[in-house]
């Protein structure tokens, strides 16, 4: 494996051959700002969803007590997601220290934990489906409780699957390819995105536990 020091020619020429950015640093800064805006957008998306559920739940005082229980796999997947976030933070710290091994180890572990999260979510869905009441006879509260779980978790998983793409890319570069300054930016941005996924998951979990 090659060292992680910058071995590629600078990509300062930017997008294609057009040279949008004079320096790599400018490109990374633009990427950071773009990511921040994306996270704000996604924050609004998840925030609005939670608000709808809370609005329905708060307006309904007679909430039934016999709704399906959250599958145990949800708790395991929570641990896996928090773990992903922690090891990615470690990978970023290792990159700052110049520790190639630390970066590679962190990324491989993050990939494994993310895979565990996704697998556990799929298993949790299977269990949830098994607990579902008959749709025709279900009350409004049962329907909202059941469907709320599906909507919250599937929207989050869609964003987890989206996060696997940059995680796989940066992992591939770290393990099999050369490294450059722009990869530093990609690593930091990937870690930030996964921290965001982690924070959103905690909010969704609290919503599921206390509102549904």
């Amino acid at each position, binding site marked *: 494996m090659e060292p992680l020091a910058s071995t590629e020619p600078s990509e300062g020429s930017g997008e294609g051959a057009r040279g949008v950015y004079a320096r790599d640093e400018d490109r990374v800064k*633009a990427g950071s700002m773009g990511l921040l805006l994306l996270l704000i*957008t996604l924050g*609004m998306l998840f925030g609005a969803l939670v608000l709808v559920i809370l609005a*329905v739940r708060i307006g309904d005082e007679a909430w039934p007590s016999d709704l399906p229980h959250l599958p145990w796999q949800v708790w395991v997947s929570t641990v896996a997601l928090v773990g992903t976030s922690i090891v990615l933070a470690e990978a970023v710290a290792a990159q700052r220290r110049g520790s190639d091994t630390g970066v590679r180890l962190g990324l491989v572990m993050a990939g494994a934990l993310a895979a565990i999260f996704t697998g556990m979510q799929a298993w949790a869905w299977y269990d949830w489906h098994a607990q579902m009441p008959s749709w025709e006879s279900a009350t409004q509260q049962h329907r909202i409780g059941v469907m709320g779980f599906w909507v919250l978790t599937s929207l989050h998983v869609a964003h987890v699957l989206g996060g696997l793409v940059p995680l796989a890319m940066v992992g591939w570069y770290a393990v099999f390819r050369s490294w450059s300054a722009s990869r530093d930016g990609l690593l930091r941005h990937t870690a930030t995105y996964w921290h965001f996924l982690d924070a959103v998951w905690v909010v969704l979990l609290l919503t599921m536990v206390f509102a549904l």
Partner: protein
Amino acid sequence: MTTMHTAPLDRPTLEGDNYLTHTRGFRSWILTLDHKRIGIMYLISVLTCFLLGGIFALLVRTQLLVPDGLIMDQDQFNQAFTLHGGIMVFLVIIPGIPAALGNFVLPIMLGAKDVAFPRLNLFSYWLWIVGAIFLVVSIFAGLDTGWTFYTPYSIDQNSAMGGVIPAVTGAFLLGFASIFTGMNFIVTIHRLRPDGMTWFRMPLFLWSIYATAVIQVLATPVLGITLALLGIERAFGIGIFNPALGGDPVLFQHFFWFYSHPAVYIMILPAMGIISEVIAVHSHRHIFGYSFIAWSSIAIAIFSFLVWGHHMFTSGQSPLMNVVFSFITFSVAIPSAVKVFNWLATMYKGAISWNTTMLYGMGFIFLFLIGGLTGLYLGTLATDIFLHDTYFVVAHFHYTMMGSALIGFICGMHHWWPKMTGKMFNETAGRIGFVLFFVGYNLTFFTQFMLGSHGMPRRYATYPADAGWQTYHVISTIGSYLMAISFFVMAAYFLASCFGGRRAAANPWGGRSLEWQCSSPPPFDNFSEQPAVGDCYDFSVLRWDEATRGYVWREDVPHPGHGEEEAHV
């Protein structure tokens, strides 16, 4: 040397290599990362949708020529006005200025080679196309909910037919295309401004695009999740919005309008930015009250998030909330009026060019004034109760959405047409087109204020013969035909200019912002060196050059690009 960024503006324009000729072939267009080509592709797509939405508008107007309806049954009428509204809002007015004109000129105005994320820009375009296909497919599946997708219409399996799911999927995708474009513009303005272009030296069009982009990024996700829940509600019957299952249809309205009122400003703010450019350039006078206009864009963007409840005065929300929303709604008049007064002050004692572009600019101010002032009646609780869901509302929002936002778009097309194509359009034909449009427009919609105040409800396929409404409907329909003719005239002279128009100079109108410093049409890379930035509204440094039929830098004024301080800042 392919650009004219720091050189005197009277150099010959680029003959061969420009963004239109740099690469050739279908593939070079559909996979292009060039913001100018993406802007042109948006423009063609938006205008195609405008034709489609316009056909539905003419069908609606033709139906109402006689009290019993002329050409459609009631279900078909419901579908026609739904598709007219959906197409015009989601596929024409919202993307028209930011995605089409904004994409073309924003990076050039900044002296940049492209937007911050060119690949994301191309992805946005194709996402928009997929969303547009979903929305248009709903024509065949049937959609009669109105463009607002109000529950319980949209979850009623019998009346809404099968078009709701494709339509909300389309609107969801279009929303994300809009978000990505907004993100791209925000980052571009922050990160790619050239040296010397501080925030308060930016062209006002960029301020308006910036304010618009902030709304796109913050408000559009709320619509996305609301429509996703509506689709789930319709497909599975959960009981969130469906009153038959214990849900709350007013909850849908709150979330829908939390986006859709700011969306009104997504439509109008960029048009206001265009008018700020057009009024200053074509009056050849420094814009009056630059910072007030800039801040008023931001103020409008902020207010836009606080007024959604004025769409729901009759929905049963609490009287206290009605009063609060009414009060905040009136507040929006302040930044809007600031803009109008500053445009008028800019024209005062200016050397106004009475060309087609300026006519559309002045037409905008007139129509926006009517649209804005009639909005005050609807913001007033007592009168809104009476006027709610009548043709008064239809007339009001057409004066703001079409008379202002769409006319701003058309005004911008005229303003930047020479830059986009390198050709001048026929001025006489343009003025004839404007007169036809202006007369047709006011015939169509001013009569609808009368209809509304006399009690004609909106969205009705027929009306009583003895109500006295038919005369207004006939005048309105004739006006709509006149408008249609004006748009065909416009299409004819734009197309004719492409094939036989006079070659455009780099700066045919006398603008000072950076897009007028590169050739018409611009080179592939816009600028080979970073252009020098000056006061983009100081027109005193330019003079008319008969040889090139454009404006050039005055010989007795030092050029900022020649290493000297600009004398006229």
